[in-house]
C-alpha cells in the first residue's frame, strides 16, 4: 500500500474535524451553540453520511432508512437496560443489530431497482413502525416508548457492584454523557463515520458502487455480480443509521416508535438532496441546515414576529406578521418545502453545487479567496 490517503482527502478530513470540533464556538452567534442541538447535528450528520453511501454512491433511493435508525435506538436502550449503562457496548450492539436487520431487508428489497426498490423499502419501514407500535410492545413498549428504570437488571453493572441513585443515565467509563460531553462523544463518531465514508468512496469498492449507479448493465457484462455490491452498500448505510439511532439513545435514553415513521425516512432523503447527492460533505451540511431551521423556525411565534416587524406601519405589520407566521412555528415545514423546491430547481446538485459554482466564479475573476476554497473541495 503506497498511499494511505491522498493529500486532498487528508485536508478535507482535517478541515472537517476542525469545523466539527469548533462548532460550539462558531455556532454560538447563530443561537445554535448549545449541546442539545449540537448533539442532533452530529447524529443526523452520521445518518445522512451513511444514507449517501447507498443513495449518492450506489444510486438506490431508500425511503425506509428510519427503520434502521429506530432499531439502533431500541438496541442501545436494551443494552442499557440489560447489560450496562456504559455507552460503548450499546453502540456496538446497536450497529450489529441494525446491520443484521438491514441485511434481511436489503436482501429482499434489492430484488428490484428504481421506484420499486424505493416502494419496497418504504413498505418494510412502515411495517417495522407499525410492529414497534403495536405487536412488538413487549420489546418496544409501544406508544410510551422504551425507557430506563431503576429496576432494570443491568447484569454487567451489577456484577461490578455499581449501584445508582435516581434516574439512570448512559455513561462512558463512569462519566455521564450529558451536555458537551455528549456532544464530543457524538462528534467523535461523526468524524469517524466521515473518515470511513471517505475511505469507501476512495476505494475500488466505492468506484464499483459509482459504476453501478452509472450503468448496471455494463457492470454485469463486465463480470461483476452487482447484487452483493448493492447489498453491502445497503448494510453499511443501515449500520450508519443504527449508529445514529444509538447515539440519540445515548444522549436521550428513550426510544419511541415515531422515530421509524416514514417522515423520518423522508427527512434524511431531503438532507442528502439539499446538501448534494454523492458528495461527502453535502449530506452533513444538509442535515445541519435542516436541523438548524427546524429548531430556530419552530421556536418562533406571533409575538416574536410582531416585535421583529414592529418597524413597519401598524396596518402593514399586522398583515406581514399574519403571512410570515404561517412559515414558522408548526408551519416551519412550509419554509423547508419552499427552500427545497428552490434548491432543486436552481441547484440540482444541492448546496455543494452552489459552493462549486461560487468557487468557479471566484476563480474566473482571478481572485481566488482561500477562505472559500477550504470548503469547496469537490468531495469525491
Amino acid at each position: 500500500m503506497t498511499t494511505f490517503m491522498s493529500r486532498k482527502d487528508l485536508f478535507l478530513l482535517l478541515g472537517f474535524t476542525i469545523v466539527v470540533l469548533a462548532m460550539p464556538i462558531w455556532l454560538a452567534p447563530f443561537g445554535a451553540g448549545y449541546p442539545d442541538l449540537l448533539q442532533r447535528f452530529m447524529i443526523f450528520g452520521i445518518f445522512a453520511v451513511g444514507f449517501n453511501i447507498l443513495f449518492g454512491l450506489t444510486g438506490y433511493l431508500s425511503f425506509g432508512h428510519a427503520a434502521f435508525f429506530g432499531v439502533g435506538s431500541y438496541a442501545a436502550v436494551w443494552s442499557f437496560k440489560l447489560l450496562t449503562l456504559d455507552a460503548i457496548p450499546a453502540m456496538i450492539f446497536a450497529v450489529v443489530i441494525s446491520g443484521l436487520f438491514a441485511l434481511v431487508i436489503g436482501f429482499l428489497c434489492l430484488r428490484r431497482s428504481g421506484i420499486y426498490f424505493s416502494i419496497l423499502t418504504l413498505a418494510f419501514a412502515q411495517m417495522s413502525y407499525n410492529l414497534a407500535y403495536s405487536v412488538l410492545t413487549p420489546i418496544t413498549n409501544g406508544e410510551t416508548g422504551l425507557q430506563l428504570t431503576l429496576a432494570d437488571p443491568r447484569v454487567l453493572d451489577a456484577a461490578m457492584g455499581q449501584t445508582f441513585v435516581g434516574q439512570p443515565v448512559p455513561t462512558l467509563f463512569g462519566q455521564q454523557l450529558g451536555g458537551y460531553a455528549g456532544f464530543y462523544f457524538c462528534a467523535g463518531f461523526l468524524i469517524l463515520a466521515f473518515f470511513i465514508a471517505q475511505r469507501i468512496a476512495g476505494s475500488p469498492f466505492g468506484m464499483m458502487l459509482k459504476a453501478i449507479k452509472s450503468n448496471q448493465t455494463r457492470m454485469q457484462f463486465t463480470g461483476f455480480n452487482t447484487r452483493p455490491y448493492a447489498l453491502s452498500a445497503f448494510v453499511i448505510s443501515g449500520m450508519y443509521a443504527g449508529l445514529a439511532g444509538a447515539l440519540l439513545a445515548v444522549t436521550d435514553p428513550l426510544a419511541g416508535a415515531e422515530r421509524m415513521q416514514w417522515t423520518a425516512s423522508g427527512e434524511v432523503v431531503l438532507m442528502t438532496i439539499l446538501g448534494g447527492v454523492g458528495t461527502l460533505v453535502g449530506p452533513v451540511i444538509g442535515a445541519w441546515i435542516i436541523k438548524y431551521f427546524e429548531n430556530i423556525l419552530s421556536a418562533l411565534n406571533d409575538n416574536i414576529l410582531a416585535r421583529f416587524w414592529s418597524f413597519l406601519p401598524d396596518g402593514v405589520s399586522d398583515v406581514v406578521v399574519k403571512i410570515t407566521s404561517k412559515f414558522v412555528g408548526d408551519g416551519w415545514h412550509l419554509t423547508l418545502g419552499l427552500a427545497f423546491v428552490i434548491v432543486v430547481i436552481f441547484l440540482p446538485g444541492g448546496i455543494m453545487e452552489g459552493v462549486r459554482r461560487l468557487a468557479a466564479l471566484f476563480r474566473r475573476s482571478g481572485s481566488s479567496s482561500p477562505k472559500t476554497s477550504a470548503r469547496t473541495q469537490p468531495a469525491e
Partner: protein
Amino acid sequence: MEKSNVVLHVADVHKRFGGLHALADIDLQVEEGKTHAIIGPNGAGKSTLLNVIIGKLAPTSGQVVFDGTVLTGRKPYQINQLGIARVFQTPEIFADLSVLHNVMIPALAKRDGMFTLNMLRALDSETGIRAEAEHMLEDVGMLGRREMLAGSLSRGDKRRMELAMCLIQHPRLLLLDEPTAGMSRHDTNTTIELLKKIKSRGMTKVIIEHDMHVVFSLADKISVLAQGRIIADGSPDEVRGNPKVQEAYLGGAH
C-alpha cells in the same frame, strides 16, 4: 493435417417471441483465433443471436457451448468471467466516470472476480491496474482523454473506449455488435485498423456488421442470416459468390 479448434458452438438454437420465430435451427461453430462475421438484412435475427450467446436472452431450445462449458442459463457476469467480452451497438459505458476509471473497472473485474469487499484499500494505490489501463488507452489512441468524463466523449470515442474496456480483460472471445455503426468513413477505417491490430493477438471474435467493407476487410469466415436462419456459411469469397446471399440482400428483405 491441422484440426480446427471450435471454441464457441451454438447448437440447434431456436428463439421464439410469441408467434415470431426469431431464430430457427441455428448451428454455428466459431474457430479459435478466427474472426467470424454474422451478416444479414435488418430483422434477420443478428442481435437476437448475439444476445442469446451472451446470456441476455434465454433460447427457447438448444444451447450455447463455450470451450466445453454450457453458457445457456448462466448470468451475464458469469459468462464474462469465463472470458467473453462484448461491445454493444450503442456503447454501454460508465458515463459519469472518467475514461481512465471506465477502463480500470474491467481490469479489476478480471483480477478480483465478480465480487470483492476491498473497501479499505485506496484506489490510488492500484498503480498496477492504473498503468495497465493507461497502456490500453494508449493502444486505442485515447490516453490524452483519460481524465475526461466518459459521457462527454464523441460517439466514435465512446466506442473506442468501450473496445478498450473489453480488450483490457484479454477475453478469449470478443463479441462486437456493429462496431462501426453510425461512424464516419474516417472513424470506420481507424476502427478497422484497430480491430486488425487485435486480430494479430490471436483473440477469437464474432462480429455482427452491416457494412460490407468492414466485413470483407476483417472476417475469416462469414455466416449469413436471413429471417432467423443461416442461409450461407463459408469464407468471404464463397459467401460473395453465393446466389442465395445475393437474393436475400438484393431481392427480398430490403
